[in-house]
């Protein structure tokens, strides 16, 4: 009798709270099966800001689907469950956490981390377990040269970013805004991201010696603390243009020290950095007139981009950067692949992603993956303008494109 009472008490203690939780959990009927989507992001550490944006973007895309009653796969509606882990911006931890998501959490699909170095650390896992992995945080072409079949990336390569920058410079030279040939001091982070960037710069300089002359080619350590010795060499090079490939924390530190040292170049670009809200906040007017190559910008006037910008501002009270747009579109791409495959089977979803053509707010309007898994959307060149505004200055064929202010005004 006592034993029976004890068993009843235990059952009540376990079952009642579980029942209450099941009843009060919003938006998900108790019988609805779920699809687990895992992601490992740098929510702390050097890339904490960007990782946070990715989490917000992924969550928004997943919530959009859950609000409509879940994802329809093979005649069955599924609730989407996003599991997010923090790697602290550490590559070794990042890789093992992705593996943990697969082996402990049994996730069905994976969304990628941020940045190139962390995506490179993670990318060995998906092929091992045949789990499709879509990322929007790693743009180095090296990620897609390793022969992995389950990795898909929505960012066009950094090589293309750098090439777009060089093409833009050539157009400005043709318009008489920059000298010909332009002497360039190029510094790049010592990662595959940076190598992609400098490769395109040196390739362009070799192909067009009449347009570009690289007078300084230096690498620096990712997440550096003090760039003043390097900037001293930029100064000594007397270059007319300063090109740097840097991630957000390094961009903020480097450009702050650039301005403090009283440097001036007619053309300054930090790759994809410059219009980031965090950067503009940290640098104030010092970030005005910087040129950047981007995958997306809130300055785009197409309805999808405008709608996304408005939604984001309403929900998070900040202007979205490309990080948020790309993470949102990356999650959408994965969900579209699952929808197209009509199954949760990893290899079949992988095949569906390989032939996916998803209408998107990204430039070009469509996300399609090349045979190596990387998307090839066109780049936009933008210029920061005073008052925390940005204008699109390239390509010419967009209605919102305006002429760039070059040479950059002296501070």
């Amino acid at each position, binding site marked *: 009798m006592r034993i029976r009472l004890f068993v009843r008490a235990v059952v009540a203690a376990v079952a009642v709270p579980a029942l209450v939780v099941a009843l009060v959990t919003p938006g998900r009927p108790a019988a609805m099966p779920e699809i687990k989507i895992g992601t490992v992001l740098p929510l702390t550490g050097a890339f904490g800001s960007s990782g946070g944006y990715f989490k917000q973007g992924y969550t928004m895309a997943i919530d959009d689907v859950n609000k409509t009653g879940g994802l329809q796969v093979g005649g069955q509606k599924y609730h989407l469950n996003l599991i997010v882990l923090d790697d602290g911006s550490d590559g070794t931890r990042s890789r093992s956490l992705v593996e943990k998501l697969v082996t402990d959490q049994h996730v069905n699909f994976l969304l990628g981390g941020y940045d190139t170095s962390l995506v490179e650390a993670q990318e060995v896992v998906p092929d091992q377990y045949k789990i499709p992995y879509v990322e929007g945080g790693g743009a180095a072409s090296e990620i897609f040269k390793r022969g992995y079949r389950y990795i898909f990336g929505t960012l066009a390569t950094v090589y293309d970013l750098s090439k777009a920058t060089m093409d833009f410079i050539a157009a400005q030279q043709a318009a008489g805004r920059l000298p010909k040939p332009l002497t360039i001091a190029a510094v790049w982070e010592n990662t595959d991201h940076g190598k992609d960037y400098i490769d395109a710069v040196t390739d362009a300089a070799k192909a067009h010696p009449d347009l570009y002359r690289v007078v300084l080619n230096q690498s620096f350590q990712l997440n550096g603390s003090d760039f*003043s010795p*390097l900037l001293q060499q930029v100064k000594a090079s007397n270059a007319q243009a300063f090109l740097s490939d840097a991630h957000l924390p390094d961009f903020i530190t480097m450009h702050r*020290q650039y301005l403090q040292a009283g440097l001036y170049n007619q053309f300054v670009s930090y790759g994809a950095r410059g219009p980031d809200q965090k950067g503009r906040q*940290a640098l104030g007017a010092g970030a005005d007139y910087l040129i950047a190559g981007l995958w997306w910008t809130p300055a785009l006037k197409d309805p999808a981009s405008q709608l996304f910008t408005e939604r984001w501002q309403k929900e998070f009270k900040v202007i979205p950067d490309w990080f948020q747009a790309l993470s949102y579109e990356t999650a959408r791409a994965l969900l579209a692949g699952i929808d197209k495959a009509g199954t949760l089977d990893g290899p079949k979803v992988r095949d569906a992603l390989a032939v996916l053509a998803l209408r998107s707010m990204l430039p070009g309007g469509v996300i399609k993956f090349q045979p190596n898994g990387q998307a090839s959307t066109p780049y936009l060149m933008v210029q920061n303008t005073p008052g925390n505004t940005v204008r699109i200055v390239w390509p010419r064929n967009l209605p919102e494109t305006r002429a760039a202010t070059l040479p950059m005004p002296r501070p």
Partner: protein
Amino acid sequence: MFSAQNLISVCITSILTAGLYAVMSYGLAIIYGVMKVINLSNAGFLMLGAFMTLVYSQAWHLDPIAGAFLNMPLFFLAGAAVYVLLVRRVRQALPIASLLMLFGLWLVLQNVALTIWGSEDQSIITRYTYKALPFFDYRVALTRLIVFAVALAVMAILHVLLNHTYVGKALRATVQDPQAALLAGIDTERISAIAFGIGTAFAGFAGGLMTLLFSFTPDFGAPFQLKSFTIIVLGGLENLAGVTIGAAILAFAESFAVLFMRASLQNVVAYALLVVALIVMPGGVASLFGRRS
């Protein structure tokens, strides 16, 4: 690259950087000198110094230089409290105990900052943040000049305090021989608490000054920790004059190395100097000259 103008410019940068390096390493040297404890939490207090300066700036529009000075008494008290509550209890144990405890404290400070301020880059922009002053044919960042001048002034004050006050003399006596200091009637426990307080005050002060030059996150401080270790090893661990020389050596080595090698190898310079110092001159540069202050 090797023009006279560039070399002079590199020298100016190095001298200004050396001032910053010295001020961020003094605290570490004082604490090691008095109690032979390597304060791994120094980087945490450096970071906290930067964030506190941000708080003053946001709440009262206080200039970072004033903020750095305001940090000094607050961090002194915090350091003394850390000594009394934590360090004193493990001081007599194996060095690994204090190392691990202070490393743990660093992690706690990092996580506290992460909880309060998040992981985003923070920065303080003043009216003079982007100003550069003409100096003959060169332009020198005003903020670097300010940091250098303030660091020099504080070092001079510290020198006076160490040489002309009872506490300073007692502190130096404890550095030289704790047993003899005790026999001479010096309350070495109190002096140790003061030393930990001064060391922590220097970390908070340096963190405040560094907001003039760098943006910062809760991870701020970690890259400077290695530099501080290199500097105090070069300086002879407990020798304050040696710390100044060590700071100058590291600053010059880092700046000139960029002329010969990739800037991405900048940290290698600090590691190499650390190894060379430990093997070739474990007593630091001061021992090469046969004198210790």
